[in-house]
């Protein structure tokens, strides 16, 4: 029944489900690709995946909430990933977060009213020698920014906004 009433809404998922639905152990891959398409995992998308793969909704939800990569809420056009790894922490990433949050008026995990930026704290981006670091996912791809200061980080955000 679920499948029927959701039919057509998730056309983009069908090729992925065709490929993986019957391959054991593919749930994470399916969720990753679904999130890639829609930006997040909506309850409807989870129901649809469940209907096609015969994996229980509760289990899908369990996996989706276990891993930090998965989001159950939509995000803004640009995702700011603020590194809070050890090297970044030692080099003042907390004050960078404060500066970003204050400038945008939102907290970690939230999206600005104009839907332009979402802030997400992450564990480590692997550019630790440039700490503090952030990565911004925009429509043009991912860009990493290093050696941030409270002042430079705001400048970068302004720059991105002005390009839009």
């Amino acid at each position: 029944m679920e499948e029927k009433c959701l039919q057509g809404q998730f056309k983009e998922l069908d090729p992925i489900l065709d490929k993986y639905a019957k391959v054991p152990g593919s749930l994470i891959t399916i969720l990753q690709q679904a999130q890639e398409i829609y930006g997040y995992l909506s309850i409807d998308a989870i129901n649809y995946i469940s209907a096609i793969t015969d994996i229980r909704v509760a289990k899908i939800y369990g996996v989706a909430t276990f891993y930090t990569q998965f989001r159950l809420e939509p995000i803004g056009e640009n995702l700011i990933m603020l590194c809070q790894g050890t090297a970044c922490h030692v080099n003042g990433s907390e004050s960078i977060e404060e500066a970003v949050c204050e400038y945008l008026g939102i907290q970690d995990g939230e999206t600005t009213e104009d839907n332009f930026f979402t802030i997400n704290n992450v564990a480590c981006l692997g550019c630790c020698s440039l700490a503090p670091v952030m990565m911004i996912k925009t429509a043009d791809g991912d860009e990493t920014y290093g050696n941030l200061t409270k002042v430079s980080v705001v400048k970068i955000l302004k720059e991105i906004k002005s390009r839009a």
Partner: protein
Amino acid sequence: MRIVVGEGSCGIASGAKKTQTEIERLLAASNLDVKTNVTGCVGTCFLEPIVDIYDDDNKLYRYVRVQPKMVEEIISEHIIGNKPVEKYLIAGEDASFITKQTKIVLRNCGIINPEDIEEYIAIGGYESTKKVLKDLSQDEVINEVKKSGLGGRGGAGFPTWFKWNAAKINKGPEKYIVCNADEGDPGAFMDRSVLEGDPHAVLEGMIIGGFAMGATEGIIYCRAEYPLAIKRLEIALKQAREKGYLGKNIFGSGIDFDIRIKAGAGAFVCGEETALIASLEGERGMPRLKPPFPAQKGYWQEPTNINNVETYANISWIFEHGGDEYAKYGVEGSRGTKVFALAGKIKHGGLVEVPMGCTLRDVIFDIAGGIKNDKEFKGVQMGGPSGGCIPAELIDTPITYKTITETGAIIGSGGMVVMDEDTCMVDMARFFLDFTRKESCGKCTYCRVGTKRMLEILERITQGEGKDGDIELLLELAEKIKAGSMCGLGQTAPNPVLTTIKYFRNEYEDHIYKKKCTARTCKALITYTINDNCTGCTLCTRSCPTDAITGTLKGQHTINQDLCIQCGRCEEVCNFNAIIRE
């Protein structure tokens, strides 16, 4: 002549792409027929962007911190005029950062183009694998690894040959060889650099290991935060398949073996072997009790061997040069080299590969130049959240699995986060507990609840509300969590607290009894004031988010302590050292 631009993640983050675009633009504008190419990370992250120029005799000229505006001069002087621009070339301490290292794992990083298998083959790549598949038996392979003394580079240093042998002995219709590229330690990046800079070396290690244990499939579990590593691995796999090095009948040996990538989804605990397997199977990444070990019952209950990226990268070198040759590096019990990722308050942050047995001083001071801004060295965190903090007085400790473990830390995957006088050790302990609490999978009560209780105590202490008895309570909880947790995450989670109490107990006591943070970082325990260096420029007033600073133009400014939120912005903007933090 040819020009090679370093494009690892850190190079790109430092602007390497812009530099490369400028190089190509200028070459085209002057109609110069010079080949340009890209390479991975040489490990000198602090010198990025790096541009290497090879002359016709293949002599290398390395330009560092190359901003687009410097490119024109380099091209007109060096490429056209054939006169290297000395002032931009790597020199002195920067150069010795590289020359003082011993490169086995990183032998090709920053030299070859990781996206071109031909370059890897041209320097002898895949020769070892060919030789192994053609001439050696499974036991001979395992024996050679045994001779090398190679220990796993993912943390524990467990003998690689032993794991391979166990996986070989156990029978199953399918067998799997897995590469652990989860690199969960926040502050470590050697695996990323190897995957981005020399992916074929890892594939070779997996093919050789797969042959030794009789694996039918290889899987690389790579963390999702490394998009460039995943992209380069995909390219490498495709090229290796086209060459017949992967797939059916590899190297004409009659053996079928292929490797695929599985992207992680962000969970530190998935670096643990059994959790990693659960994650590969599409489940929540929860560890389970061992035994049975993965070599007995792993992925889909079949014999499975898991090794770290760096472990595999050593393998092809071992088969090129021999296990005995490898064992010449290092010391008894810790053979070969190890790559360390230096970050934090270090002057030259990047990757350092040294033979095991050299001292922390060799790495931190001799190679990496010591502490940034000439501050005082306080300690180094090794082994990430599972490790511990080694204090300055133990700087001459040799780096071996045994000696580092004796300090209370672990070598771990090789992250070294260096701390100076401005780093508060109680805050560091709090930071790590915050991390492990979030990353605990929740299966064991002590790990799930115990880490939370410890974190609460540490938060109280850093907020100036520490109580007599807190240190003892922390120690008691630490012992219980270690004893009451099933997997390595919980068993090691208290280590950062235990080591900081062991070596920096005075800092805990200062916080608790004197309500003082010696490193001046815990916000609740510091105050900002303005001294008479103040010129009344009003810059601080304008930067203050809470209007706590008052004063007239050219007059002395003051901070209203009731309004101050200790954000430190005034200190950052002040040009006259007038803001005092204590």
